[in-house]
C-alpha cells in the first residue's frame, strides 16, 4: 500500500522534470571526476604537451622560451648521444638487479619477522623506520658509511681481512653501492607488504598440505606461491613504478659518478636540463623515457592481470 503511494507521488513529481533530473544526475556523476580531471590536465597533460612542443623547438636562453621550430633535430642529436644510451643502460642494470633482489629479500625477511612471538610487533614497527628515511638522506648516510678513509664499512671489512673496497670510486662498486642503498631503503617497504600478505594466507590449506605429507619445498612452490602470486605481482608493479623514477639516491650518494657509471637516466636528463641548460634535448630524452616506461608498465600490468585471472 505505502509503496504505491510513494510510487505515485514521486512519479507525478518526476514526470515533468525527468530530463532535468537526468541531467543533474549526469552532472553529479561527472562532478566526482571533474576536479581531479581539471587538476591533472593542468599539471600533467599540459606539461607533457609542452614537453612534446619544445622537443621540436630550439630554446632561446635569453627568454627561456621556444623560439624556433627545428623538426626532428633534437631527437637526432639525442639518438647520436652515447651518454644518453649509457644512462639508459645504467638504469637497466640498476633495475634488473635491484628489483628482484628487493622482492626476494622483502619476502624472505617478511617470513622471518612473521614468526609468532611476543616481540613481533616491535620488530615490525622497527621496519617502518628505514622506510620513512628520505632517499636523499639514505644516500648521504651511506656515502659516509662507505667513505674509503673514514667510513665504518671498510674498517669492518678490514677486521675480517677484506678490502679496502673503493665503494664510490670504482664503476663496478659504485653501481653495487647504488643497488645496495636502494635495497636498504626499499626492502622494508616490501617486507611490510609481504608480512601482511603472508599473515592473510589461509591456514587450513597449509595444515592440509602438512597432513598430506608435503615437504617445505613443495609447500612453498605448490601451495604458498600460487596464493601469493597476485600480491607479488602487485608489489612488483608498485616497486617498478617507484624504481624507474630513481634519482635522489644516485644524486646524493654518487652524483652519477665515477664518470657516468651510476648516472641513471633521470639524473642524466636533470643534469642536461638544469646544469647544461639543454632544455630542448632534455625534453626529447624525457619523452623517449616516457614512452619506454609506459610500454613496460602496460606490459607489466597486462602480466599482472593474466596472473590474477589464471588463479
Amino acid at each position, binding site marked *: 500500500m505505502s509503496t504505491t503511494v510513494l510510487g505515485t507521488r514521486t512519479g507525478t513529481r518526476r514526470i515533468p522534470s525527468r530530463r532535468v533530473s537526468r541531467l543533474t544526475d549526469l552532472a553529479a556523476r561527472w562532478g566526482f571526476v571533474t576536479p*581531479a580531471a581539471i587538476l591533472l590536465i593542468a599539471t600533467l597533460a599540459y606539461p607533457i604537451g609542452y614537453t612534446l612542443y619544445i622537443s621540436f623547438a630550439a630554446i632561446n636562453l635569453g627568454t627561456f622560451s621556444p623560439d624556433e621550430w627545428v623538426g626532428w633535430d633534437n631527437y637526432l642529436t639525442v639518438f647520436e648521444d652515447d651518454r644518453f644510451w649509457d644512462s639508459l643502460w645504467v638504469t637497466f642494470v640498476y633495475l634488473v638487479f635491484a628489483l628482484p633482489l628487493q622482492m626476494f629479500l622483502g619476502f624472505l625477511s617478511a617470513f622471518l619477522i612473521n614468526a609468532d612471538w611476543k616481540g613481533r610487533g616491535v620488530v615490525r614497527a622497527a621496519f617502518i*623506520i628505514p622506510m620513512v628515511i628520505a632517499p636523499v638522506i639514505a644516500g*648521504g648516510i651511506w656515502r659516509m658509511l662507505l667513505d674509503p678513509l673514514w667510513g665504518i664499512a671498510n674498517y669492518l671489512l678490514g677486521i675480517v681481512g677484506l678490502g679496502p673496497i673503493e665503494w664510490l670510486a670504482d664503476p663496478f662498486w659504485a653501481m653495487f653501492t647504488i643497488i645496495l642503498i636502494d635495497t636498504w631503503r626499499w*626492502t622494508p617497504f616490501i617486507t611490510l*607488504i609481504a608480512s601482511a600478505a603472508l599473515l592473510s594466507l589461509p591456514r587450513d590449506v597449509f595444515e592440509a598440505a602438512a597432513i598430506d605429507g608435503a615437504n617445505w619445498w613443495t609447500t612453498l612452490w605448490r601451495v604458498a606461491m600460487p596464493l601469493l602470486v597476485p600480491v607479488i605481482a602487485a608489489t612488483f608493479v608498485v616497486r617498478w613504478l617507484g624504481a624507474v623514477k630513481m634519482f635522489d639516491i644516485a644524486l646524493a650518494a654518487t*652524483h652519477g659518478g665515477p664518470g657516468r657509471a651510476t648516472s641513471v637516466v633521470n639524473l642524466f636528463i636533470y643534469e642536461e636540463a638544469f646544469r647544461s641548460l639543454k632544455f630542448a634535448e632534455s*625534453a626529447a630524452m624525457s619523452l623517449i623515457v616516457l614512452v619506454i616506461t609506459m610500454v613496460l608498465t602496460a606490459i607489466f600490468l597486462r602480466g599482472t592481470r593474466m596472473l590474477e585471472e589464471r588463479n
Partner: protein
Amino acid sequence: MSTTAARRRPSAYRRRNAFLRQLRIWSGVATCVLFLLPIAWMVLTSLKQQRDIFTTPPTLFFTPTLETYINYLFNYDLPARMLNTVIVAGGASFISIVVGSMAGYALARIKLRGATTIGVIILLSRGVPPIALAVPMFLVARAMGLLDHHITLILAYCTFLIPYVMWLMRGFFKALPDELEEAAKIDGCSRFGAFFRIIVPISLPGLLSTLIFSIILAWEELLFALVLTNRAASTVPVVISGIAGDTVNGANWGALTAVGTMTVIPVVIFALLVQKWLIQGLADGATKG
C-alpha cells in the same frame, strides 16, 4: 587419531622444530637490527665533535655533544625549510586526498562511460617520469613568475599524488558492499550526500593510511623541489642534497648527520604513531589494488 600420532612423534623431531623456530625468530631480529644500523650510526655521528668523526678506526667512545646541532640548526635555515616542507606536503596531500578519493569513488562505483579507460590512463600516468614534467614546469613557472612559491610545488606534487590516491582509494571503494548507495538513496541522499555521509565515514581507515603515505611521499620528494624552488619555498630534502653534494667543502658529516637526524625524528615519530594505519594501508594497497 592424528593427534595421538603427532604426540608420539620422536622428540628429536620436536627439538628440531623448536630450534628452527628460534632460528627464524632471531634471524628476523638480526635482519631488523641490520636495517637499523645505518640510522644508529647517523645519530651517533651527529653527537660527535668534528675530531671524533674523523678518526681511524671509527670510534664508538666519545663525549657526546650537541654542538653540531646548535651550529647547523640555523646555518641552513632549518626551521623555515621544515615549515615549507610541512606546508607543501600538507597542502598537496590534502588537495590530493579530497580530489583523488572523489575521482577514485567515481571510477569504482558509478557507471561512467570510459571509466575503465580512465582507470588505465591513471595507472599508466603513475609511470610518467617526473623529469618529463619538471622541465616544462620550470619553463612555464619561470615565465609566470611562479618559481619559488609554495603553490607551484603543491601543484607539482599533485601530479603524482592524485593518481596515487585515485588508484588506492578505487581499490578500497570497490571492496565495499554494493548496497550502501541504494540504502543512501532510499534515505533521500543525493550522490554527493551518499559519498560524504556514508562512504567517507566507513572508509576512514583507508583514507587515513592513503593520506599518511601521500604526506610521506611529498615530504621526501627531491626532483621537483630542486627545480622549482631555490630559497623561499625550498624544502628539507633540498637542504640535505646540498650538504651531501657539497664537493667544495668536502664531506661535512657533522652537518649531514645532525640535519638528517633532526629532519628524520619528526617523520619517525609520526610514522610510529600511525603505524597501525600505515601497515594496514600497505597490506590493502597490495591486495585491493
